[in-house]
């Protein structure tokens, strides 16, 4: 155990110093007044130049939110959030005269992206990735739009979609995650700042991976992303979401909503790498991440696959789920959650089997180090009509050191006798023998831990698109520098 103790100590030394994206870009902000009331909602809606119906939708959500209380069932602990002491809208000022191309974008923004390695540059364009970068609340640049337009794919900020494609937005917005779904989703519905809209028409295979980088920058500004992706009949789209945030002392609230709709025989692959500021070694600061992500396999034979690599945030509260409504639909959830120091993660998925012959697969890898607590919480629910439903769940936990915790909370509800549900779970530790073996081969401890953890996560990393997988592997290494190695 001596080696493990030393690992833990080294972790403690390194943590907090290693958050490589901890910087703040000094850009003049346009802000809403501090606090949340009807005027805040109206301000945001006006800033976005929204039609009346959208404002009403927001106001209704706000009225409902006022009557709701924060959920307390998750295994996370944090001081009460003062919702009246936060800002709900901030946009980079240069956005006021909407840049048409990268040349018009504030050089400081570009510099930030460069520090982050965000690929707005030529090389990335050549790599075939269109980037809709969200800097705080407003999307500042969208690339490769022309090529997508040619394929008939709509990929734009949701604020733009509300103005340009109101029929599509009205038809689908809030149909997967209802306005009153939960406290944080309702809050998001009232004050969402911006986000991404994707529509892939019938029979179209989206010609490239769609990628959005989210970034929280303004101090004390809640970030409320709203994403809506619709894959029409027989279409396919792969969407990548990656996140980093600058270093902060105050906790920042983040409550995103993502809705996916897959119509008949459509497939949506949604991959996330989340690396928001986790707080320092004493547990001070860090992002509070309360996210509602849900996909609806609405049409027969459709498929939705979630892959997530969660390494950041002080608190993660997140359950990307699939409603397997159509017959013969497939839902998948592949997850890596790494927590270190005082990070807390309560994450998992819900697979709701409504249709016949529906199948779901869950692979969850939780890694806990320092004094972190890592909880897998999942629900597999088979409804009476869901003949021949199948689920396989695998939950593996890896502990590093002896002050962290791993918890597995699987719920299974089956109301159809033909269902076949399997659940496997393991908990293990990185052993002294494994570390010593690596050392005798000349692999330093930090690198050894990264190697072993990457091996542990392999089943999930393999699900990521190639280019993202490389980044994710590096991120596992980086978070292990600051979280393990």
């Amino acid at each position, binding site marked *: 155990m*001596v*080696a493990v103790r*030393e690992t833990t100590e080294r972790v403690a030394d390194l943590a907090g110093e290693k958050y490589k994206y901890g910087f703040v870009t000094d850009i003049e902000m346009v802000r809403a007044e501090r606090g949340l009331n009807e005027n805040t909602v109206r301000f945001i809606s006006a800033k976005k130049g929204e039609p009346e119906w959208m404002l009403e939708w927001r106001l209704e959500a706000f009225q409902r939110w006022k009557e709701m209380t924060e959920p307390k069932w998750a295994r996370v602990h944090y001081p009460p959030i003062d919702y009246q002491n936060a800002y709900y809208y901030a946009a980079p000022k240069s956005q006021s005269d909407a840049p048409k191309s990268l040349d018009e974008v504030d050089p400081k923004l570009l510099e930030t992206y460069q520090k982050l390695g965000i690929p707005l540059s030529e090389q990335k364009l050549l790599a075939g990735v269109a980037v809709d970068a969200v800097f705080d609340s407003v999307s500042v640049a969208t690339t490769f739009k022309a090529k997508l337009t040619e394929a008939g794919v709509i990929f734009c900020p949701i604020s733009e979609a509300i103005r340009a494609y109101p029929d599509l937005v009205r038809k689908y917005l809030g149909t997967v995650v209802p306005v009153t779904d939960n406290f944080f989703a309702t809050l998001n519905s009232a004050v969402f700042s911006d986000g991404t809209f994707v529509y892939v028409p019938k029979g179209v295979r989206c010609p490239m991976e769609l990628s959005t980088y989210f970034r929280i920058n303004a101090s004390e500004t809640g970030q409320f992303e709203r994403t809506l992706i619709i894959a029409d009949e027989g279409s396919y789209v792969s969407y990548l979401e990656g996140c980093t945030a600058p270093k902060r002392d105050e906790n920042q609230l983040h409550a995103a909503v993502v809705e996916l709709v897959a119509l008949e025989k459509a497939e949506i692959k949604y991959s996330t790498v989340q690396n928001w500021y986790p707080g320092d070694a004493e547990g001070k600061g860090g992002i509070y991440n309360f996210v509602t992500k849900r996909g609806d396999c609405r049409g027969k034979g459709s498929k939705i696959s979630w892959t997530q690599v969660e390494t950041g945030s002080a608190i993660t509260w997140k359950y990307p789920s699939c409603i397997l409504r159509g017959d013969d639909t497939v839902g998948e959830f592949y997850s890596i959650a790494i927590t270190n120091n005082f990070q807390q993660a309560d994450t998992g998925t819900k697979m709701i089997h409504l249709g016949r012959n529906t199948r779901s697969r869950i692979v969850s890898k939780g890694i806990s180090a320092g004094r972190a607590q890592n909880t897998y919480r999942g629900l597999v629910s088979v409804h009476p009509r869901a003949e021949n439903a199948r689920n396989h769940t695998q939950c593996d936990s890896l502990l590093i050191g002896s002050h962290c915790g791993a918890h597995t909370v699987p719920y299974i509800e089956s109301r159809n006798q033909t269902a076949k549900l399997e659940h496997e779970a393991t908990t293990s530790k990185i*052993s*002294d*023998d*494994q570390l*010593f*073996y*690596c*050392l*005798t*081969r*000349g*692999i*330093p*401890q930090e*690198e050894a831990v990264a*190697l*072993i953890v*990457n*091996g*542990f*996560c*392999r*089943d999930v990393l393999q699900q990521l698109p190639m280019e993202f997988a490389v980044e994710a592997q590096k991120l596992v290494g980086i978070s292990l520098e600051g979280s393990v190695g």
Partner: protein
Amino acid sequence: MTEWMLEIDNLHVAVDGKEILKGITLSIPTGEVHAVMGPNGSGKSTLSYTLAGREGYEITRGRILYQGEDLTKLAPEERATRGVFLALQYPVEIPGVATLTFLKTALNAQRRARRETELDAMRVLKLIREKAKALNIGEEMLKRPLNAGFSGGEKKRLEILQMAIFEPKLAILDETDSGLDIDALKLVAEGVNALRAPTRAMLVITHYQRLLTHIVPNRVHVLTKGRIVKSGGSDLALELEASGYENVEAA
């Protein structure tokens, strides 16, 4: 004048406060292969772990010189980088990490520490393929997770493959023969013999004489109860086989 690869002088080692090695003195000249033989519990593995620098193996007295320098000042990974290699009795499994990935990571970690340029995937693959062939290690085995589900023979052959790739100056083989049938033993021994060189020294640690008919050592040392009780030429191994450890101890 003899050039010494390894000089162990009056080495005392304690584990959890209990003294296991009680004054070992043993030196290996560059270019020679020495064997340490001993029964279970004599301190053989303690000796190999101490040489590799494992945590928890506390040197209470004595010293270890490697190429004339104090080995004990170096961290385990530094020892590896500077040419000390330990083939373990029980190589560990690392699930999900392809053997090839592991070998590449280790090789490049050593090169980086020596300020040599790292090798790209193609060159590593070429290097490993060349060396693997002689040990009858195929592509399929290199793709499997490190040691996961490997047979005893496969694990030991992989240890020798690593020795061939890293080209250490001092190789310590800890009971490399354990768990091997005669064919596997021969294959491993051939691999080791191929690596004998005037610039390299080896310490072969074993319980049984049979390995030493294939890897013929320059000298044999008998370890019992934490002490070297007898040293001699390669025929000492045969003597032991005939008379057993207890008689040596008595003598």
